[in-house]
């Protein structure tokens, strides 16, 4: 299978990329790792006239501390989520999620920014930006802006990105000593997209939960925070009965869509099992 013919432009700067995109009348796509875009073009699910290659733009690279957060350049590859010491130390939830993203060779090319921009509801990283309360930094024809992850994912493959806009980096608050995290997913086969997956970041000074963010993926049209569940856990020390209550609250927060493969009731059940396991693990770290 072959993509429809397109033109190719390699941008050296953000301005060049934005300009090329605009000149194609927005009938263009940015290409980063290409690990989702190339198959989509091969299947002719998309047929843009122009591909703007952003992988040679230096400003989109690099991971560094900036005040109270970690700035992760959009071009940071999935494999770097595993190998970069700053990620392991200051964004351990991303480090924990990374081995679940696709297969090693795909992780060698796929980028963090590409994954967040695509906003596949079955993907690990978009959901983790929610759990981490990250901010997405965007460059566009009308300037730069930052959008909270909570406001970024709008509907199926739909984000706050406007045509021609580019993710430059993702800012993640630094992991703190009184925080704990947990990540896991249930999949049919290692490397497959999850049937259901979840990441948790909790602040629990002295073992009592003061703040908690729980984000699910593969359970709806977007990555999903379960705020009702979060509320039931505030003040808890993750005692067994509080975990059971949290699992019960999940029904109010999640409404998995119907699919031939996995009925909603089954997905909800798997989500409850997963939540129980993760909260159990979080409690053991007390």
């Amino acid at each position: 299978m072959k993509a429809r013919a397109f033109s190719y432009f390699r941008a050296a700067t953000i301005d060049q990329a934005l300009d090329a995109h605009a000149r194609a009348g927005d009938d263009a796509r940015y290409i980063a790792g290409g690990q989702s875009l190339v198959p989509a073009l091969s299947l002719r699910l998309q047929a843009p006239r122009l591909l703007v290659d952003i992988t040679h733009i230096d400003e989109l690279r690099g991971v560094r501390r900036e005040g109270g957060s970690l700035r992760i350049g959009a071009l940071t590859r999935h494999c770097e989520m595993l190998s970069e010491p700053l990620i392991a130390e200051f964004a351990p939830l991303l480090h924990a999620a990374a081995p679940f993203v696709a297969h090693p060779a795909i992780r060698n090319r796929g980028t963090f920014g590409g994954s967040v921009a695509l906003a596949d509801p079955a993907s690990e990283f978009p959901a983790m930006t929610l759990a981490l309360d990250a901010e997405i930094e965007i460059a566009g024809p009308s300037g730069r802006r930052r959008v909270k992850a909570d406001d970024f994912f709008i509907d199926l493959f739909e984000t706050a990105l406007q045509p021609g806009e580019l993710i430059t980096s993702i800012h993640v608050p630094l992991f703190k000593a009184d925080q704990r995290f947990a990540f896991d997913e249930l999949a049919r086969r290692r490397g497959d997209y999850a049937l259901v997956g979840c990441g948790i970041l909790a602040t629990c000074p002295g073992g009592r939960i003061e703040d908690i963010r729980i984000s699910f993926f593969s359970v709806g049209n977007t990555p999903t925070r379960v705020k009702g569940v979060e509320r039931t856990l505030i003040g808890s020390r993750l005692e067994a009965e509080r975990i059971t209550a949290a699992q019960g609250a999940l029904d109010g927060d999640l409404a998995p869509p119907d699919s031939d493969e996995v009925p909603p009731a089954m997905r909800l059940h798997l989500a409850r099992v997963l939540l129980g396991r993760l909260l159990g693990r979080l409690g053991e770290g007390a």
Partner: protein
Amino acid sequence: MSGFDETLQDEAEAPVRVRFVVNGRKVACEVAPRDTLVDCLRDKLELTGTHAGCEMGACGACLVQLDGRAIHSCLIYAVQADGARIDTIEGLSEGGVLADLQAEFHRRNALQCGFCTPGMLINAQELLSRVAEPGRGEIRDALSGNYCRCTGYEAIVDAIDAVAKARSKGGVAT
């Protein structure tokens, strides 16, 4: 609007000259922007050791090394790789880096039709360069994106396991 706009479609069909260092040699060839790297390697450079199976990133038959890392050559356009160093199964075989893996695959019948084998070897090589002595679970994990329709994987895992142990002892597998 500018001329850029009107000429876009002509440009789409027009051949583009790309240069790589393939298996240590400088090469140049003409490709269309939509030609994938695997097309270019097989059709233009006659390096048919890199196989094209699914052409969707799912089977792993098309793995090559790009600037030293294993990647799917069906998921990158040749124009994107302009200026890169590419090592294919041919180069890695001739260079001898895979000799012990190849011998062990052979010895243990870790291949039948051989279609998946180039991708398996390139992935195995990358795994062993990252983890000195991976467990069988880790080996299976690393191969999760490589389909084999013949062997059932057991012999492949055995072969990689044996080479890992031999390499970390500084010898060759027996």
